[in-house]
């Protein structure tokens, strides 16, 4: 401002030589023409200077002013709250790390406090629930709720309620229109706008009727156990509908809320003409006014104090009894399952705190007791017992014993009638050997195997197949093989002897069939004779190499059942031959002592 041309209300002076006489006249003219505006400019400049001074002064006194006002009421806090919130939000948006670092030291204690309070609330809630559910009073209320059809919570409130702020109305003072309304959970008030209008009308009615002093309003009125408590502000009224006797704190909270609403929503309230949209955010403030206080320490509880313990104890005892009965039933079912199991004999069974103790006799072929109980779904956490071996003649155990003793596969069917065991299906050569070697198990005196088929182990079966595939060829019309074919016959004989020894070692019986064929040339009688000679020829070679003739059988087929080939020459050649077939069997019956 110092560099600006000076403005003054006085006319400018003329300089010495009168050289600027024209200028002076011009200044005078200017003063006449724009003098008032110049004066106004000067005033504005002064005002601006003063404002700077005021800001400096303000900076000097602001802290004290804030402290002084803060002691008087909470308006400073309320006025600054939106600005501080905006500043915080902006700061967090710009640099969240800075804020996180700043508040880190208080985060831990805050979280711990929150958890502690939550746990305390939970404990209180459990205490309250136990008390209400198990006390004589709680049971009485339950019965009342059931009898009258009124929800239990409402019955509790009816009997134990100290007070409950059920509804809050924020009403526009001038029009009586409802700005916002909040109700306690479970309550409904669909005509809040009509009630709001009528509340205003009644206010007016009372004021007009009794003509109290300026600003006086109908502050409270009661109907039954409800009280309507109205706080009036310059632009809005806050009415609370309270059930029961509300303490002074409710009124103070109501006043605070109304003041806050006037402070935060001053502009929308002043401009209100029926549109509640700009005031929607006032709703949480109303909800804060709603509260329910129930006296859980009401009198009449002491005389039934003992009931609080007797009833839980009775329930616990009942539960224990149920558990014991169930455990006993389970134990009895388990013992019965063991007694019904073939090969097990229960001698003694008792149930202790640490588990079950069961002793008895067990056939080694029977199932383990644990397996029996697990199969029935009755296996206890701890099962002890001593099982002495014994020999069971139960048919199931005898069959199992035979299967175990002879290493019979599970696929081989066994059936026991009286003491005669019948084996059918595939019978492995090894099991056959065990039958001969280990004899008959207890409970079996006769075994019938005629329906079974002896199965060779793979290494022997491959020898059998190799023998069956061999063929000793003959020249046309020849009854004896040439040297090469004789060597082939001898090789087959060695294989047959090896196989026969192996089968014999397992008590099997091998039958070798030597099949003689001829080509179709010649008469049937001649060919039949030739086929017999060829069989005899090979049989002699086999006998010379130690193949016992008692299990060799000759079958001179001659031209019947000829072997087939691609052409007639080849067919004639392969049919001038001796081939082999092998069958393994066993004695059809085994009897104890024989």
């Amino acid at each position, binding site marked *: 401002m110092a560099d600006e041309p000076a403005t003054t209300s006085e006319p400018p002076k003329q300089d010495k030589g009168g050289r600027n006489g024209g200028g002076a006249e011009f200044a005078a003219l200017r003063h006449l023409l724009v003098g008032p505006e110049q004066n106004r400019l000067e005033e504005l400049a002064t005002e601006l200077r003063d404002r700077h001074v005021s800001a400096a002064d303000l900076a000097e006194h602001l802290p004290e002013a804030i402290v002084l006002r803060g002691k008087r009421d909470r308006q400073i806090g309320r006025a600054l709250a939106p600005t501080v919130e905006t500043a915080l939000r902006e700061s967090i948006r710009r640099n969240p790390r800075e804020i996180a670092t700043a508040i880190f030291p208080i985060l831990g204690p805050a979280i711990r406090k929150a958890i502690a309070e939550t746990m305390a609330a939970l404990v209180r809630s459990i205490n309250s629930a136990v008390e209400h559910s198990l006390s004589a009073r709680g049971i009485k209320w339950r019965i009342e709720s059931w009898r009258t059809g009124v929800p239990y919570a409402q019955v509790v409130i009816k009997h134990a309620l100290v007070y409950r702020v059920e509804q809050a109305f924020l009403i*526009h003072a*001038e*029009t*009586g*229109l*409802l700005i916002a309304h909040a109700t306690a959970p479970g309550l409904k008030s669909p*005509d809040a*706008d*009509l*009630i709001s*209008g*009528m509340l205003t*009308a*009644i206010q*007016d*009615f009372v*004021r*007009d009727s009794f003509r109290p002093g300026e600003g006086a309003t109908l502050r409270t009125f009661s109907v039954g156990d409800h009280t309507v408590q109205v706080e009036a502000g310059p632009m809005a009224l806050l009415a609370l509908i309270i059930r029961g006797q509300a303490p002074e704190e409710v009124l103070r909270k109501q006043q605070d809320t109304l003041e806050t609403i006037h402070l935060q929503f001053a502009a929308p309230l002043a401009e209100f*003409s*029926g*549109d*509640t*949209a700009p005031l929607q955010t006032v709703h949480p403030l109303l909800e804060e006014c709603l509260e329910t206080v129930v006296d859980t320490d009401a009198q009449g509880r002491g005389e039934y104090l003992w009931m609080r313990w007797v009833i839980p104890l009775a329930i616990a005892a009942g539960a224990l009894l149920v558990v014991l009965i169930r455990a006993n039933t389970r134990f009895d079912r388990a013992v019965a399952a063991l007694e019904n199991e073939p090969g097990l004999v229960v001698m003694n069974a008792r149930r202790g705190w640490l588990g079950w103790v069961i002793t008895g006799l067990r056939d080694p072929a029977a199932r383990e007791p644990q397996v029996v109980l697990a199969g029935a779904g009755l296996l206890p956490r701890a099962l002890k017992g001593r099982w002495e071996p014994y020999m069971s003649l139960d048919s199931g155990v005898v069959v199992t014993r035979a299967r175990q003793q002879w290493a019979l596969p599970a696929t081989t069917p066994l059936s026991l009638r009286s003491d005669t065991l019948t084996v059918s299906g595939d019978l492995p050569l090894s099991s056959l050997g065990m039958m001969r070697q280990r004899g008959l198990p207890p409970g079996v005196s006769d075994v019938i195997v005629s329906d079974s088929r002896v199965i060779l182990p793979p290494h022997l079966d491959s020898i059998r197949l190799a023998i069956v595939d061999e063929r000793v060829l003959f020249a046309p019309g020849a009854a004896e093989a040439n040297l090469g074919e004789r060597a082939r016959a001898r090789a087959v004989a060695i294989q047959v002897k090896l196989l026969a020894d192996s089968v014999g070692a397992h008590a099997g019986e091998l039958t070798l069939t030597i099949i003689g064929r001829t080509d179709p040339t010649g008469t049937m009688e001649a060919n039949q004779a030739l086929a017999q000679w060829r069989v005899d020829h090979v049989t002699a070679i086999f006998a010379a190499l130690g193949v016992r003739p008692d299990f060799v059988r000759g079958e001179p087929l001659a031209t019947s059942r000829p072997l087939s080939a691609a052409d007639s020459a080849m067919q004639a050649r392969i049919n001038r031959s001796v081939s082999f077939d092998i069958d393994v069997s066993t004695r059809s019956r085994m009897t104890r002592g024989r």
Partner: protein
Amino acid sequence: MLQKKICMVGMFATGKTCLVQRYVHSIFSPRYLSTVGVKIDRKEVNVRGEPVTLLLWDLEGRDGNHDVNPSYVRGAHGLIFVVDGTRRDTFDQAFDIRESITSQVGEIPCAFAFNKADLTDEWQLTQADEDAVSARGLHVLRTSAKSGTGVEETFQWLADATLQKTGA
């Protein structure tokens, strides 16, 4: 939510309450009129697709010697003035009463309901009376509590007029 305060006024026994009772939601007894002097009803209307709630302050009928209670009309957004078409005296003081109200709440939309239009044999008002209302820039409709004629139209016009006035 948009709400408007509408006052229904008129001389004693012009049929204000009967006129609207079939068309509004009410939870208060008509006895309120003779005790508190006002009964409040609700009427939902739709203006250009927007729901508007009219809170109807049904004011006790006046007998000519009393003004309308200023407390009850304070802040009103609209006015329904009910005239009994079979009683000329209910119209004669209408403009005075209206002036008394506007002196308190300022110029607000006002609809004149010439009620009991079904009683044509006893009708005492003339076209000149209707013209006199219209000449003041006010809305006028013949209504009948018996047949319902003109009732919905009156509400609709008033809701529309209050929104136009507030620029909504």
